[in-house]
């Protein structure tokens, strides 16, 4: 072979040897350990730190919330429905963001250095599962939230940890006054609220058949000054807690019932623009919850006046202030006229 060819072959051999050596030094030693891949990668990937910690992790500090939740409709394993803490609050752990994709075994953990999110826009949150949407299976509880609550936050009424129970009645404990004793303490009431508690044109609202819990709450608010009224404040101030319970028991025992809440009535209520009202006050003015007042038996003027007081903020109530502010005069007139149509029978 000529000299140049020999040199060429030699050059190729040197080049080849360098490549072999490079490969020997550069290939990871764990490659081919389990197959055509870097064996150590398995361990590295598995070492990543989990972010979602599970309900048991939350329970160690928040056992009250967890126990409330565990008995609720949001924890119903038999029906296959379990809304765990981290579904709404987000993961209780994080990974070190600098280690992104580099198999991070470090990161922050709640409560040490990671604050959990408390959802503020609960309507947006709850709608993720409960807004009526094409595609949601029928067994899923779903509503048209706009019609159900307007722009109100869901947690105004629902306890998010146990949404089947309502904040209103939860807040008001069970009260039992003596209606007979109460009958002897109402002499001053009748001038304004009418005999048998039916106002019929007098300045005060109808009290007959009103929810006991609501009456107690209202009288207590007058007594403590939380709610102000030149007429009621001094009267309530003179009452003892026992008096309030007894008087509430007496008025709630009086009859003022409208007919059953029918589908026709609901349709009529919607017609009158009361589709939001019916959720709490019923289509016929009978409240769905003891914490909220019945509207049956109230005059149109009284309802208009009350809504104006809510809108103006003279009467404080988170839900009603927000709702009343959203109504114009025509809305108020129409609503009041509608509910005034249900008088005591």
């Amino acid at each position, binding site marked *: 072979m000529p000299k140049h060819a020999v040199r060429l072959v030699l050059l*190729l*051999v040197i*080049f*080849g*040897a*360098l*490549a*072999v050596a490079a*490969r*020997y030094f550069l290939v990871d030693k764990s*490659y*081919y*350990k*389990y*197959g*055509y*891949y*870097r*064996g*150590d*990668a*398995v*361990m*590295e*990937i*598995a*070492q*990543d*730190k*989990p*972010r*979602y910690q*599970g309900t048991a992790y939350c329970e160690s500090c928040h056992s009250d919330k967890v126990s409330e939740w565990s008995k609720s409709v*949001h924890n119903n394993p038999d029906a*296959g*429905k*379990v*809304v*765990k803490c*981290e*579904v709404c609050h*987000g*993961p209780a752990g994080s*990974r070190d*963001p600098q280690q*992104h*994709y*580099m*198999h991070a075994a470090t990161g922050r953990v709640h409560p040490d250095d990671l604050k959990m999110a408390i959802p503020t826009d609960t309507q947006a949150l709850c*709608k*993720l*599962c409960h*807004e*009526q*949407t*094409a*595609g*949601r*299976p029928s067994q*899923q509880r779903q509503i048209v939230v706009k019609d159900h609550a307007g722009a109100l936050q869901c947690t105004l009424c629902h306890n998010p940890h146990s949404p089947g129970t309502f904040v209103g009645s939860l807040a008001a404990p069970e009260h039992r006054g003596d209606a007979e004793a109460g009958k002897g303490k109402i002499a001053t009431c009748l001038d304004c609220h009418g005999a048998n508690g039916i106002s019929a044109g007098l300045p005060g609202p109808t009290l007959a058949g009103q929810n006991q819990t609501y009456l107690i709450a209202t009288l207590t608010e007058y007594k403590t000054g939380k709610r102000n009224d030149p007429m009621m404040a001094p009267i309530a101030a003179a009452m003892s807690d026992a008096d309030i319970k007894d008087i509430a028991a007496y008025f709630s025992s009086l009859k003022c019932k409208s007919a059953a809440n029918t589908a026709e009535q609901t349709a009529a209520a919607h017609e009158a623009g009361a589709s939001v009202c019916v959720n709490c006050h019923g289509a016929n003015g009978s409240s769905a919850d003891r914490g909220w007042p019945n509207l049956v038996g109230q005059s149109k003027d009284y309802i208009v006046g009350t809504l104006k007081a809510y809108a103006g903020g003279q009467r404080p109530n988170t839900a009603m202030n927000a709702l009343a502010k959203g109504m114009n005069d025509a809305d108020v007139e129409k609503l009041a006229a509608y509910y005034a149509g249900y008088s005591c029978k």
Partner: protein
Amino acid sequence: MDELKMNEKEQIETCQSSRRAVLGYLGSAIAGSVAMIATGAMLPKAAHAAEAAPPVPALPGYDWSKHRWAFGVDATKCIGCLRCVEACKAENEVAGDAHHFRTWVERYVTLEGEEHARIDSQADPVNIAASGSEKEYRFANRYAGEKVEKAFFVPKLCNQCTHPACVQVCPVGATFKTADGIVVIDHTYCIGCEYCVQACPYGARFFNEEQGVSDKCTWCYHRITKGLQPACVEVCPVGARVFGDRNDKQSPISQFLANNRVQVLKPESGNAPNVFYVGIDKEVI
């Protein structure tokens, strides 16, 4: 699914894989000798692999030879709340936008008088507008005024196929199937050619531009090897996602497979997926 048939199938699969291995070594031998001439690279240490060094990686309290993971999706239960999608993004540090998903949810809606379903996912511009952010996901109530004949949601994720096309095409062995059945990516070895992204018939893979590597769902390998459930299963409020070990006859997935008639996506691809679906329609792709 018929257990006996499954066993048979696996035996065949095992045979195939050993045959494949032999072919692989043969191929590497031939190509290797070609390579010797060309660049002088050495034969891959195929013999080394055959000697079978430690068969189990050193994971605390976990033996990968004892597990056979599988995933079930009950589309009749999914409510499309997309908690799984957000949980996955958080758990796995996936880019918070509408173009990178390890898991996603599709919605199929057939309107009265229409022949084909309308399909969208949380990444659809209408749904992104409804959520108000590319980092949060929400199905817009876009069919509220329409007459809907049939509608359902279908969660999607990596099928961890028995014959993964993505692993087949990876030129460097950066993506591989673990002994317990999960296809993972070695992000420190991936060259970022995106061949695997092209090869996946299910669109389960995506490219992380920031890191220059491909990425995909791993069924939260870092969780399941610690006895936890994948993040999407952990947060699913209605039990539409089922996960477990097929070696354990009492596991949720074994029960799911025993009690349902399941199907897989695109079986004609030959990939043999390991995500089993209940309650999906002919239109689901």
